[in-house]
């Protein structure tokens, strides 16, 4: 499981020739950052080859042997507009997002570095608010902010504030996680209702003028993962946090890596009424909407019920559900099966989901 970092250096030095890079676009566009197919193309076709990244490195956290310890490292960046929204703000997202990347890699989060890129002209009160939010979120997640950096850029850049983090944690020996462990018949569990965060942000932007009692679901999922580990660690094959691009994206990545078909039972997907209403009004699919406080786990069929019971018993896990299963059929990809037995393909989006009127 540990990546051999030093050989990666060698690979990076023998950099690829430009002509052999698969990424052919002349410019980087917004779609490349949305977490879907375009992001995949950018990472696979330019970033990973030039950095000499091994295939396994393209996950939420890198696992590294340091002497006797196995340490998980992760990095992330946070760009959100508006900076504050019902349920949280960018500071909270930064902490929880980093912590969650570690948690779903089976590592107990320990600490993080926080880098700020501040737009000149940002009100000090806003920055203060975010620092308090970071502090509070870190305390809540029981992690330490151990350092960081601050830069200020010209007015007009950075949308107020960008935050980049580097997080680290200790790999928890209870978990052995890899997409290679996934087998046909395994169940797919989601920790709670999907779409809360993305729809909250969409509404908070004010472009669509909808009013709903919705909050971002941002939180550390480590306590829930921890409980799951106690109850059913042996059966947990793989976990991911479905942020930008939603459930559809992480399950498509799993399907790609394993070659299996992931069949989602639409009727089982937990979705709040408000999220459903907003999605129907705007022509969006909850499967593609970002979450900031949930995770998806693939669990062996023997442990699935025990895992679910454990989740239901913990505060914040009451709405966890088994939403699908892994199948070994020739098609691959992700399917959504309707309550009346028909099935449609659920693809990754190219960029962010956009409301439609047609």
């Amino acid at each position: 499981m540990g990546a051999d970092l030093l050989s990666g250096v060698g690979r990076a030095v023998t950099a690829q020739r430009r002509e052999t890079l698969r990424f052919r676009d002349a410019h980087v566009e917004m779609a490349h950052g949305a977490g879907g197919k375009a992001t995949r193309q950018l990472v696979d076709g330019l970033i990973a080859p030039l950095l000499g990244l091994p295939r396994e490195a393209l996950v939420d956290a890198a696992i590294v042997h340091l002497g006797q310890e196995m340490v998980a490292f992760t990095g992330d960046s946070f760009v959100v507009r508006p900076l504050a929204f019902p349920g949280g703000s960018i500071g909270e997202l930064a902490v929880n997002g980093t912590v969650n990347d570690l948690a779903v890699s089976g590592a107990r989060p320990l600490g993080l570095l926080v880098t700020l890129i501040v737009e000149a002209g940002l009100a000090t009160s806003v920055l203060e608010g975010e620092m308090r939010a970071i502090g509070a979120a870190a305390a809540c997640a029981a992690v330490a902010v151990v350092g960081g950096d601050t830069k200020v850029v010209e007015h007009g850049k950075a949308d107020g504030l960008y935050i980049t983090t580097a997080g680290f944690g200790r790999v928890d020996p209870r978990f052995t996680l890899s997409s290679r462990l996934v087998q046909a018949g395994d169940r797919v569990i989601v920790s709670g209702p999907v779409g809360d965060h993305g729809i909250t942000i969409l509404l908070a932007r004010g472009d669509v003028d909808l009013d709903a009692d919705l909050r971002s679901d941002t939180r550390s999922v480590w306590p829930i993962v921890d409980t799951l580990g106690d109850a059913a660690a042996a059966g947990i094959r793989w976990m991911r946090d479905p942020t930008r691009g939603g459930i559809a994206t992480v399950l498509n990545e799993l399907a790609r890596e394993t070659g299996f078909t992931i069949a989602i039972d639409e009727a089982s997907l937990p979705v709040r009424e408000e999220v459903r209403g907003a999605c129907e009004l705007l022509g969006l699919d909850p499967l593609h909407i970002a979450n900031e406080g949930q995770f998806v786990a693939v669990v062996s069929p023997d442990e699935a019920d025990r895992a679910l019971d454990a989740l239901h018993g913990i505060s914040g896990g009451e709405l966890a559900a088994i939403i699908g299963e892994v199948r070994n059929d020739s098609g691959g990809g992700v399917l959504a099966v309707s309550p009346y037995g028909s099935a449609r393909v659920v693809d990754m989006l190219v960029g962010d989901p956009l409301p439609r009127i047609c």
Partner: protein
Amino acid sequence: MCLAIPGQIVERSPDHPDLATVEVSRVRRVINVALLADEPLQPGDWVLIHVGFAMSLISEDAAREQLRLLAMLGEDEEAMRELDGLPATSADTP
């Protein structure tokens, strides 16, 4: 074209006769009801909403009648058995 969703009028605007608040699955929006000016629109009525406008007053009676007709379909046992033999996925090969 034409994504349009049923929503329930929860209140009409006292200041603007053309505006009303609708609710769809606990999501609210102010919409324009000028296209239904000829109807006696009241809170509790259901309308079809498209791009922020009410397009039609939904008939509860017609809906119920439709569902009644639908419930009478497919009582042919033979056809039901044939349907049950379908696989859950389609092999849609080009």
